[in-house]
Each structure stands twice: as C-alpha cells, then as structure tokens.
C-alpha cells in the first residue's frame, strides 16, 4: 500500500527528538527501524503528520555495561542484540530470542526499543524484557524517568511512553551464574509472528528450582508473567513430572486472542505445552 503524506525530521540527540515531538503535537510518531510503523502507515491504519526518526541518535545506539546490568540503547538493532558480545555474555536469553525475530532483513532494521515501544502482544523481545525485569528509560520535556517492565506494557500496542516522550534505552539485568533459560517460539513459518511464545529462566540448586521466571508472548494484551507457574516451580524439584504439573497452570488467567492462526483455546493449550518445554530446557532436562 501507499502511505499518506507526512513530514520527516531526523534529530541527532534525545533532546532534539523530544523537542521535535513537542513541536509536532499529538500527531507525531517516533520512527525507529520502521519494521512495525511503516506497515501501519502503508496500510493507512494511522496517519501521523510528522515522523521523528531516532535511528541516528548516537546515545540510543550504545550498549553500556553497568556491572549487574546492561543499558541497551533503544535504537540498537535486533541483529546487534543477537550478535553483540556483551549482550551474548550478559543476557544470552535476549540474544537467543533476538535470533527468533522475523528474518535477517527485518532484524537488520528493526530495533529492540522499537519492538518494546510498539508493544505488539506477539512481539518476542517485550516478553524477554518482562521475564528479565528490565527497566525502561524514557525521556520527555520534563526530563527522564525509569519505568519497570511490569508497569511499562499497558495494553495492546500501548506502553508507558507518552505521546511527547521517547524511549531512550532499556536496562536489562544480567541473570548471573546458576541460571538456565529458554525461549520457545511457536509459529508456522520461520518469519511469522509468534502464535504463542514462552520465555523461561530458572535457577537450579542441587536438584531444586530455587528461583523461576516465566513470561508468555501473545497470551493477552502484552507480555504476561505466569505467576502461578513461577510459584509452583519455586522450591520444587527440577524433574519432568514436577515441571509438567507446574506448567499446567500456565494459561490460567490469560485471555489470548483468536485469529487466523489459532483460537484462544488452542493458544491456551500451547502455552501449557510450551511452558513445560521451556522450563524443562531451562532446567537442563
């Protein structure tokens, strides 16, 4: 399709980007890699009057090791997340999931921050941010603020980033020693969206799961932590039976959509099966 007309600005700094948004008013959109926004424009689902392209804001393209966490600029591409040595060493679950996103062409243009700010419930990287308890650094006219992943994803395609704000970076805590992890993405073709995805990270000590985190992709309006599964796993045995029993509650309380690939009932079934598989792999079974 062919998008409607819009103005285009390309700031060099976060402050310039914020100023450009303030000037444009409510009809502006931030353009990162464009892998979600451009289809929206081409299908004429949205008609912004100004696009603020942040892909050349230097600060947003950096990866900084903060010791116990990594600060990953919002404009860092999915491809870079997949291959960056610091990310691979510090949060390998994120690199692994980045390799599951779409196809190489999209990974070279699409960005980690863009995926989170777009907040498609079928997106893979928001689920990883959620399971790792990432923090989101947001800049606006009144300065910068930090929002936890739990408070960042508000609804379908809706986040805590205001219309006049820019997502600058995502702070991702490192998991540290003793953790195992997995991301199970279930889709029909290699480049398709996740029908359901499950991210799991567990810490096993002497055959017992001492900590467990599980988050679900596309099982609701945004990435969801499977709290009941985490509770059932924590303190339990790292055995196939115990994990299967815990995974049985993975879909509890979820309200997934029905679409052409899967209905809600099948998604719930998949969430249970994939949770069992993701946790089992994370636990080294």
């Amino acid at each position, binding site marked *: 399709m062919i998008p409607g007309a819009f103005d285009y600005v390309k700031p060099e700094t976060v402050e310039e980007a914020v100023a450009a948004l303030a000037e444009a008013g409510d009809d502006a959109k931030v353009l990162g890699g464009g892998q979600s926004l451009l289809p929206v424009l081409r299908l004429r689902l949205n008609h912004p009057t100004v696009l603020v392209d942040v892909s050349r804001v230097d600060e947003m393209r950096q990866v900084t090791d903060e010791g116990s966490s990594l600060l990953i600029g919002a404009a860092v591409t999915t491809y870079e997340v997949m291959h960056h040595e610091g990310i691979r060493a510090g949060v390998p679950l994120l690199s692994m999931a980045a390799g599951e996103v779409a196809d190489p062409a999209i990974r070279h243009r699409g960005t980690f921050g863009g995926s989170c700010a777009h907040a498609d419930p079928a997106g893979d990287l928001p689920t990883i941010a959620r399971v790792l308890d990432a923090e989101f650094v947001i800049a606006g006219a009144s300065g910068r603020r930090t929002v936890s992943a739990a408070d960042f994803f508000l609804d379908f395609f809706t986040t805590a980033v205001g219309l006049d704000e820019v997502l600058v970076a995502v702070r991702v805590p490192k998991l540290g020693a003793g953790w195992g992890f997995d991301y199970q993405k279930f889709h029909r*073709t290699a480049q398709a969206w996740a029908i359901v995805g499950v991210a799991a990270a567990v810490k096993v000590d002497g055959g017992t799961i001492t900590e467990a985190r599980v988050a679900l992709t596309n099982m609701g309006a945004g990435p969801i932590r499977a709290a009941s599964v985490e509770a059932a796993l924590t303190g339990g045995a790292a055995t196939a039976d115990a994990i299967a029993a815990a995974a049985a509650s993975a879909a509890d309380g979820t309200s997934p959509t029905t679409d052409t690939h899967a209905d809600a009932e099948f998604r719930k079934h998949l969430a249970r099966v994939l949770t069992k598989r993701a946790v089992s792999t994370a636990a080294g079974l």
Partner: protein
Amino acid sequence: MTETVERTGGPAIGRPIRRKEDARLLTGRTNWTDNIQLPGTLYMSLLRCPMAHAKIINIDTSAALAAEGVVAVYTGKDFPELPGSTCVWPVTDEIVMSHFPAICLDEVKFGGDVVAVVLATEKYLSVDALDLIDVDYEPLPAVVDMEDALKPGSPLVHSDKGTNECYVAKMPCGDYEAATVKADRVVKRRFINQRLIPSPMEPRAVVAAPMGMSDEITIWTSTQIPHVLRVLLALLTGIPENNLRVVAPDVGGGFGAKLQINREEVLAVVLAQKLGRPIKWTETRSEHMVGTHHGRDQIQDIEMAVMNDGTLVGMKVDLLADMGAYLQIITPGTPLLGMFMYSGIYKMEALDFTCTGVYTTKTPTDAYRGAGRPEATYAIERIMDEVAFELGIEPLELRKKNWIKHEEFPYTQIAGLTYDTGNYEAATARALELFGYDELRAEQAERRAAGGPVQLGIGISTFTEMCGLAPSRTLGALKYVAGGWEHCTIRALPTGKIELITGTSPHGQGHETAWSQIASDIIGVPVEDIEVVHGDTGRAPYGMDTYGSRSLAVGGQAIKLAGERLVEKARIIAAHQLEVSPDDVEFAHGTYSVKGDPEKSTTIQAIAFEAFTAHNLPDGVEPTLSGESTVDPMDFSYPHGTHLAAMEVDTETGQVTLRKYVCVDDCGVQINPLIVEGQVHGGLAQGIAQALFEGALYDAEGNLLTGNMGDYLLPSAVDLPSFITDRTVTPSTTHPLGTKGIGEAGAIASTPAIINGVVDAIRHLGVNDVFMPASPQNVWRAIQTAQNGGAA
C-alpha cells in the same frame, strides 16, 4: 543433482544450459510493466468496497475531484454497460452467466469490488484521493458457505437470476450403480480443497497508451495471455482489434492469476482512449489479495467402490465448486479441467462425475497452477490411502494392484482419455530407492511403539496429469470458445542470426533458452545466435499463450515444424547454389553438402544472405528465408511420477515438519533438465504450501481474513527441506519431440503426498483426515476430535 554446464558442442536438446534470460531477470535490468515510464501518464487507482455485499446508495466524488493532481474520477454511472471481464467457457447449455462490471453501478458483490476510479498526475496523489470519496452503502446479506447458498431461501448473489447455482455438469462413465452392486464395499470421504490466493512475485500492472501516430493503443500488461487478451479487449471495449497491440514485457510469475482479462486492463484501455493519455496502474500486495482471482475452493464428496482384495470397481465424484461473485475467463471450466483425471493412473469400470458451480459473495475463482487437476489428483490419491486403510492393505500395494501396467499402454482410461505412454513401475521403484521406504516404515513402527510425542508418517502420491491444452476439436466439444493450437515463425536474418517468433508467452519458464535449444538442433545454429521473440502481438502476431503446461507440449511442435520448413526451403536454395538436385544435398549441423562430395558445401547462414539479396535464387523460389507453422496438437500429453513424503507430527502441538521429500517425475524427453528441475522445485513448494501453509479464510460476513501476508502464509526456502528429485524418461508418442509438460506436475502431485503423510502419522490416534492447510491448530484439533470419539 543436475550439473550446470555451458554448451560445448553436440546436440543442444537435453543439455542443462543455464537460462540466458536469467541475467537480466535477476539483476532487474529489464522492463517490468511498472518500470515503463511514459510522458503525460495518469495514475489510476481504484476504490474497492470494504464489505462483501451491498447496495450502492450514493457516491460523492466532489472532494476527490477537487484534490491536488486529480484529473478525473469515474463511477459506474460513467460506464454503465462496460464489462470488466468475460467468461469464454460457458460449460453447459443451462449455465447461469453473470455480468462482471468494470465499475459497479448499484451493487457490490465481493469485498474488493470496484466502485470508483481516480486518475491523477502522480501515483501518491491518486491514492490519497481515494480517501476523499464518500460512498453510502446499504449492506446486503453475504453468501459465504456453498452448501447454504444452494438451500432454498438463501440470499442471492445475483438477485435477478433467482438462484446461486451456476451450473451442474455431469459426466457419467460406465455404470457406477452397477459397480456399487458388484463391489464388496464403498469407501466414502469428504475432502475440502481450500481456496488459495495465487501470489506471483510481481503483482498485476498495466500501462495503456495511445500511440499518437495512428489509432493504435499499446497495452503493456503483466499477463500470461497477450494474444487472447487482445481479442477479448477488442470484444469488450469495442475498439477495433487491429488498433490494439498487447505487450507482455518480462512478467514476474503468473501461476494462472495472469491467465485473465482484468477490469483494471479494460479500464486502462478505455480511459487511455477517452483521455488520449497513457494510463498506468500497479496494484499493491493488499489489493492483489482481494482483486486477483483466487484458485481451488471445492468441497469433494468422493466414493470408491472396491472389492475386498483391493480391486477398484468404480468411483463417484460429487463436487461443489465456488465460482465467487462473477464468472471470469474460465471460472466455470476450471473445476472441469480435472473432470477426466479423477481415476488418476488406475483402472476401474465406472466414474460418475458431477460438479455444481456455486455463486458466493467472494472474489471470483479461476485457474491456479494445475487448474482442476490438483483437485482431482488430491481426491484420488487421498481416497486411495483411505481405501488402503479400510481394507488393511499397504497403500503402495493397493496402488500397484490397480495402476495401468507399463505394457498396457496406450491405455484408454475410464473417462475416455488415451494415455499414450507411461511407466509407473519404473518411477516408483526409483523413488522408493531414493526415499529409503522400508527403513522409514521401520522407524515409524518404532516410534509408534515408543509412544513419544513426535510421530512419523509416510505420504504417497502416484499421479498423472493431462497437459498440452489442447486439440481444438476437443475444446470445441467442451464448449470452450477458442482453439488450442500454437504458432511459430523462424526467420533467418541476412546476418545469419535467427529470430524465433513464438506464440507462447513465458513469465518465468525459460522459453527463450529452451526454444533456442530446440531450434538449434533443427537448423544447426548456435543457441546464442537465436533470439526468441514472444509476448508482443506486434512482433509475434499469432499465439494462444502460456498456461496448462502447454508451451512445450504444443508450442514445441510448432518450433520443430517451422524449423524443418526453413531447412527445406534453404535446401532448395543450397542445391541451386551447389548446382545439384535438392535430393543430392545433405543437411547436418547447419551445413548443406553434396552427397558423396562433402567438400562442396554451404552454410545455412550463407543461404540466409542469398535469400536476402535474391541475386541468385532458383526460379519460383521467393526471397527471404523463414519457416512457419501453426500446430493443432493431436492429443494431450500425460506426465506422471511418484512422490513420497516423510512427515513428522508433534502430537502435543500439532506442528508438522516435512522431513524428507522424494519425487521421480516422468515428463518424457527433457529439453533442458535444469529448467525441468526448477519447475519441479517451484511446483513442489506451491503444492506443499497448499497442504501446510496457504488458505484464504472468510468470516461469516464475507470479509477476507487473510488479506495480507501476515495472515496468508507463504513458505520461504527455510520452511522447506532440500528436495530429492530424479526423472525417468518415457517419451510421449503423441509429441514429435517425445516431450510432455512439467510446469504443473510438482504442484499437482505434492499436496496429497503431504496430507497422506500427515494422516499416516496420526492414523493410529483415530484420525482419517486433516483439513488443509495442515496448520498446528487443524492437526491438533483433528487429534482431539478423534480422541474424543468423533470422526475427524
């Protein structure tokens, strides 16, 4: 498996020469229709209705007309009588025909039907103006389900017709009732051959331009059928045919979707003539999904009457075929192209065929790679597996027991076709060897015994198809309003270069290379010295174009005959120059020499120059050197093959994985094995895609739910394994080159092989069928239904 080698001498036929057209196609250094830029062009965009069925109450175009760059806006009121397409195949005397308007006048009948046309000086401005057109619709009930559409009281697609039934076509062969009496049992199944959306890489595009110096309008369009289109455009627009020149530039795939006369083409021509300016239209992918014709979409009720020992006695085929909202070029005939093929390669005493065409408020259907034959092959190869299961016979053994044995050819099958040649035993033996059939069966048994989540199944498809459309008398008997001949002119130019003018119209098949190979062997000129001219009614005036794997099967015959005629004319001139009788002149590898005195010789290039100067021609011989032929084929040709698929099914998630695919095809003599290989690979991808990925879905209101490639899934290379392919060669005896067709074989054979494999993997769970595409949800639900005691 096929080596790529350049020509080093010897015969050109049979060599896997790399395609000479590929460099320009792969680098984009060519004219796709959308590349054509003419001064003064107006860009056409179409307002398509957002609902399946509605009355048009009012259209306000004033804001659009006032918008920047807009030159004109038209609605149905401006062209109330203009048809946008036409049907050339009224399959029965009683058929209910439909009028497909270029622009809808007072009613829209499918989502994507056209209600207004904008012409603007820029493409973007043209699209922007669509948003400014205000249409008041009064919704009418959609007609979505074929069975509901036939019930009394159903809402009607065409209210003036009084019915949604388009036609009922019957073909009783033998006595099916007697067969059921004789048989020990009758196995019945219902198969759904789902609706597909043909998706060539290049979407549709057209440029129509008045040429100024005359009344000629040149139409560049991304089509498979420039010649047929020229005739139809003349008939529909009233513009004299001699004023229309249709050019198919390089065309980026068609698969049947470009075997069509489109309303967009009609409008471009009419508006170019009306305004005296070039009109250009290129669709977007989203527009393509609703605006191009769709394929397949049949409900197949299949019965097979069998003896307990597995002998087939008779078959009953009862089809419902979705026409969509209107009949386009061969909409009603498409399901009937499979009519003769339901018995496949098997012997039986009766075949009772009925097809009911049904109107619905959906995009019209028409030909899609295989056109009727994939549906027939799916039905016969699926029911063979079901019969094998019901009788407890190994599915391969059941096939062997019933197929036509190689010593029985030529064989007239139950529908009256005479298969000239075939060797199902040889193709099957080779396929089994490549596949490792016994080992995989052993692994399947082990996996079942172990009871793990991932089970293994083996799918078989021993198929044949008919291609080479077609003997003209046969087409006439089927009520098709055109012939099936093909034309070729070969001109030897004064410089010794060759122009081969073909009526076939390639859109990715490699005709330029393959036709050069044929002509090279006949007239003895190097492949690289032959230019193949195609797809332009100005340069190649006669032709019936490319579809139905006909180009080599029919067009190849014309090349051979035209080449031979050129050689014979040149022989007379050569004899004159060599001062001997033509009977004393031998011709080989482009050289004419005197029998017994080979030093006395001349070349075909030298003769071409002599024919040009005409200084020294024998009396009664006209200047210039060319050969011409228009061939009506004596029969169809019948490629066949054995395809085997190893399918893994994750019974917990329904995820299906194609682990191994082997096919051994027999397309007779191969002109270029590398091109054959490419056709097989592409065909397999398309047939496998029907089985596993593709499917057009509509909601109850008739809205297309799969209107983009996020919802309508096409596989990419990473979703498919490396195919293991080979060929057996059983030359056709009805074709002078011994060739058959290969363009559609992969797409026809592979779909049932895949689904047979999926069902075989989960048969022990009580599953007898899986809806296509065999998506995880469809597979999982089939297992759930069977486990809960229901028939899947």
